């Protein structure tokens, strides 16, 4: 019994085998049983620092979410960092114009791993009401891997809080080992994304083919 409790190298698989009742019983006695993965993810999920970065009206809702009424601090995400070097999360809040898109990608590349992206609002997801225009990018997912997308125009602060909670759920369930471990623990996966160049009428390339392909019609 004692051997099992003090096994520090408890793998997640072994940990999952421990009975929930036993865990709670031990907790009542002041013994906390956990795995390194759970502890690590718990810490990460509750200190997601977003980048101070807004592009349009969605940024106003993002600011509202961080203020006292909605209080994003309850989720550990209140520390908006003014430098990408200190940020974990990029909230793409607003319309991404084609002129701005390379800068957004560059900011993402400057963030250290692990990093996450929330596409906030209709414009960041798909171009929104400007989708048919000549100057707005039809969704940031053409260049960046989006973890959570929030629909809305603009989304309410509650929706942003929900997105942060969804992201926390995603972080909590990430495995530290194995083939499906996240990018920041897998040296083989590139964390930087190519920055598009300004072309004569559009960005070149118009999308990152490794990330996004135009949708095929089902007939």
């Amino acid at each position, binding site marked *: 019994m004692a051997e099992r409790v003090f096994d520090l190298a408890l793998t997640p698989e072994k940990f999952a085998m421990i009975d929930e009742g036993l865990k709670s019983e031990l907790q009542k006695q002041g013994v906390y049983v956990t795995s390194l993965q759970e502890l690590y993810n718990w810490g990460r999920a509750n200190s997601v620092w977003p980048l101070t970065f807004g592009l349009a009206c969605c940024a106003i809702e993002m600011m509202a979410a961080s203020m006292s009424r909605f209080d994003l601090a309850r989720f550990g995400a209140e520390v908006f960092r003014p430098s990408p070097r200190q940020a974990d999360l990029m909230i793409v809040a607003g319309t991404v114009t*084609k*002129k701005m898109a390379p800068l957004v990608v560059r900011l993402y590349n400057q963030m250290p791993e692990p990093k996450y992206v929330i596409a906030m609002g209709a414009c960041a997801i798909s171009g929104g009401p400007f*989708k*048919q*225009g*000549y*100057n707005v990018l*039809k969704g940031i997912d053409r260049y960046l891997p989006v973890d959570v997308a929030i629909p809305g125009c603009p989304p309410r602060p509650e929706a942003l809080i929900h997105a942060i909670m969804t992201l926390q759920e995603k972080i909590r369930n990430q495995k530290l080992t194995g083939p499906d471990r996240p990018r920041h623990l897998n040296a083989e996966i590139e964390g930087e994304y190519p920055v598009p160049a*300004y*072309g*004569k*009428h*559009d960005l070149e390339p*118009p999308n990152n083919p490794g990330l996004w392909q*135009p*949708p*095929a*019609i*089902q*007939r």
Partner: protein
Amino acid sequence: MEALEQIKARLETAVPSAKIEILANDCALGERSLLVDGASGFAVAQFLRDDAQLKLDYCSNVTGVDWPDKELAEKIKVKQVVDGMEKEVEEVKKTLRHGYLEVVYHLYSMSLKHGPVVLRMRTENRADQTHLPSLTPVWRGAEFQEREIYDLYGVIFDSHPDLRRILMWDEFEGFPMRRDYVEPDDFEYEPTPHDEVLDAAKKHYPVEVKPEVKPEVKA
């Protein structure tokens, strides 16, 4: 403030070379404007700003208008002899109005608290003679708005201190606010296309695209 006719008369004595015209306006407010030729535009602007009775020291707004080539149809009654009888017959007379680009300045006086005086200038055509004098040396606030008009309409403002694109990137070609601007064809499949989007969809997908119909579930 004095009447527009009075301003025009005083302008003609102050700047003898200026060709000034008062343009009527059909809209409900009926705001008339002064049309000035490009060559004397700068002198007229200086007079409007410095004149003791006008002191139009504030340029609130500068905007561009694109007037493409247009066929004007006019109905004229012509007397014709038909079967020995003289009759009035309606004929449609068609004239081609050559296109031009127009710049509109809205001027107010902060010191005398009156306005607006609407000042217009027109280019010779839309292709190669698109030069107009910059009024930025007269009203400093016109700088960015003239840059925007250059960016989106292609009016070249002579003696502008810093004439570059302001909204689109430097490598961009064409002037997107012109009526004949052709947007890059980066059509993306949409489930419910309409209007021009539907035309683009038909071009990209020659076979009729039918929306997905879900089979009815029998209870």
